[in-house]
């Protein structure tokens, strides 16, 4: 497909752990992931803690080294191989791909004014020649993120969580990126503020034609914002489909359990949900076979030995499970 912005095949990221002379081992945070992010889409990446979703996002930004597989970026102007990107090309990629953080308190330097924070990428990348040009650009972006232009002289301590997150967004936008990774960007915000930031991100995506990779643990948030969803479990991609398809008929037992674990707002709908036993295994001590088999209610012997591959059935709804066809048929029969 020509309009795929990010394409990864067999992408892996491993970290050396147990530094020192003894006991060096590799922790595979992301293992053999295939992912296609379409240009202009709002791509959601869901998973619990330890699923590798943050690492995957950072690998695509070249913030952590890719240790295996291929990954490429292609926006129509440039084509980059993300595994080998370096030097001036990497500098150029930094302009095109940006990150928005989770914690609006840690992500802003307390020693710089809002203007300086937003202007920093412009200055280090040499995107603007004069101070006037920088100021004009900062004002333009700040206005887009609904920041009060009179507040640009202030320091971050003057702002509330929602406002700080808008400053973070403005900094990410200022270099004119084509691709933005938003890592749990609303998780630290209060509910009444969260919707505001989500709407802002959607508006930016539409108006500026930016592709988003939206990483979150909160299914109801991603369901509302993303066009396409990918679910990760212990470093593997277990299911990937357009949001509506995925919500209408999840194929992987983990996705199903994830959906039913969301506390329903209906007080009469208590305890009906299917509950998962146990917890996500430690990434340093992964089970053999399907990584989900230790908690899966439909586990069979094969799951304990063979690891299922991500299947592409042709309808755009990819899943990595040995029994998904069987389970889908059974679900249809009972319905």
């Amino acid at each position, binding site marked *: 497909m020509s309009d795929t912005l990010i394409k990864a095949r067999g992408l892996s990221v491993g970290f050396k752990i147990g530094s020192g002379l003894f006991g060096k081992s590799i922790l595979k945070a992301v293992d053999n992931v295939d992912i296609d992010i379409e240009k202009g889409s709002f791509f959601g990446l869901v998973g619990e803690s330890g699923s590798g979703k943050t690492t995957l996002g950072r690998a695509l930004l070249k*913030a952590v080294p890719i240790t295996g597989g291929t990954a490429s970026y292609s926006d129509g102007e440039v084509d980059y191989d993300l595994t080998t990107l370096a030097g001036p090309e990497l500098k150029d990629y930094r302009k095109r791909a940006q*990150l928005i953080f989770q914690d609006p308190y840690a992500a802003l330097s307390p*020693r710089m004014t809002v203007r300086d924070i937003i202007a*920093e990428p412009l200055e280090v*990348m040499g995107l603007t020649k004069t101070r006037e040009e920088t100021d004009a650009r900062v004002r333009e972006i700040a206005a887009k993120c609904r920041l009060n232009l009179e507040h640009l002289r*202030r*320091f971050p301590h003057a702002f509330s969580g929602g406002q700080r997150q808008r400053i973070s967004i403005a900094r990410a936008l200022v270099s004119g990126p084509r691709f933005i990774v938003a890592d749990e960007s609303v998780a630290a915000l209060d509910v009444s503020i969260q919707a505001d930031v989500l709407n802002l991100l959607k508006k930016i995506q539409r108006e500026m034609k930016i592709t988003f990779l939206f990483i979150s643990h909160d299914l109801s948030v991603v369901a509302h914002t993303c066009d396409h969803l990918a679910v990760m479990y212990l470093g593997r991609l277990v299911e990937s489909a357009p949001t509506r398809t995925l919500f209408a008929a999840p194929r992987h037992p983990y996705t199903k359990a994830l959906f039913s674990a969301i506390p329903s707002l209906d007080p009469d709908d208590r305890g009906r949900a299917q509950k998962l036993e146990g917890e996500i295994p430690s990434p340093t001590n992964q089970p053999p076979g399907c990584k989900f088999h230790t908690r899966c209610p439909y586990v069979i012997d094969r799951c304990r030995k063979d690891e299922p591959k991500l299947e592409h059935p042709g309808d755009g709804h990819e899943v990595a499970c040995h029994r998904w066809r069987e389970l889908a048929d059974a679900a249809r029969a009972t319905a």
Partner: protein
Amino acid sequence: MLFGRKKAVAAGVDQKAKEAYFTASQGQLIWARFKGNRTAMIAAWALVLMILMGLFAPFLSPYDPTIAGRDENYENGAPQMPKFWDENGFSLRPFIYATERERSIKTNFRWVVTENRDHRLYMRFFVEDWNYKLLGLIPANTHLFGVDEGGKIHLFGTDASGKDIFGRTLHAIWTSLAVGTLGVLISFVLALIIGGVAGYFGGWIDSVLQMITDAIRTVPSIPLFMALAAFMPDHWSSETRFFFISIILGLIGWPTLARRIRTHLLTERTQEYVLAAELSGASAGHIIRRHLLPSFTSYIIVDLMISFPYMVRSETALSFIGLGLKDPVNSLGALMQNVSKADVLLNYQWYFIPVIFFVALVLAFVFVGDGLRDAADPYSDSKK
């Protein structure tokens, strides 16, 4: 919590003050918080006063604090307080009495000093006496005060050889501060380089530097001092000794500071805003200059303030046990050494006056350091 509190500062004041608060830099916020700490502010004023006293010691002391300025007629003399009146009437100019010294059969052939209450010596200001160089540069011979011809004024009394303790104390403050400054500077430069390299590069460089740091920290200081004292030749001038001691204090003082700088760098490097700058394509130089250095200047200042009294104390301790500066030199430690005689405790209590200054100096540094630390450390006010 913190945010609520910080914002709280702005409550109930007009918009202008609020805007000033919102646009206040970290330094301004720290200063604002420091100003609110009364103990620290009093200590800061006391410290400034003592530093000025040290700086202008020659101008403030009426007599040369070395043996050249001794008062042969007033050895082990008690402090003389200027008076405005006595039984002979009132005077607008403060005065002291002339003293007379005699030795006779009546006094068991010991020198006895008596005041002649009928002979007033009036205080005079901006008198010309011994020559000195102001701030080490400008030759001068004017002193703040003195008395009429025919006697001398000793506010804090004199020691066994008749040297003015007031002048000695002021000069001693200066010596101790200078040793401290030199020592702190040496250890600070070493700490910044070693801690900075270890913290920024990490990895095996860090491991090796940590080992060296730990090795130095394990050297016990008292035996080291004694070995050094044995090494110091007797014929060294007081200036050489002075530099030698400063360098030693600096050389053994850096590991603690280096460790703190390293830890701070390691934590600051993983901050998300540093990653954000990296992802903007910022170079290592830009990150060090723009983010890392500013992030710990406040900590460095606090650390320097806190290690200063340690240096002053070390110098004093060394001199006190006789391993550092020796008596003709005016250092607080050398002055305190004189106090350790039973004779002094019984008869010449004014020898203790330099001790008061020493305690005040160390306390002032500690309180200012604590105040700065509280003001710079956002976690210190998590009262809620």
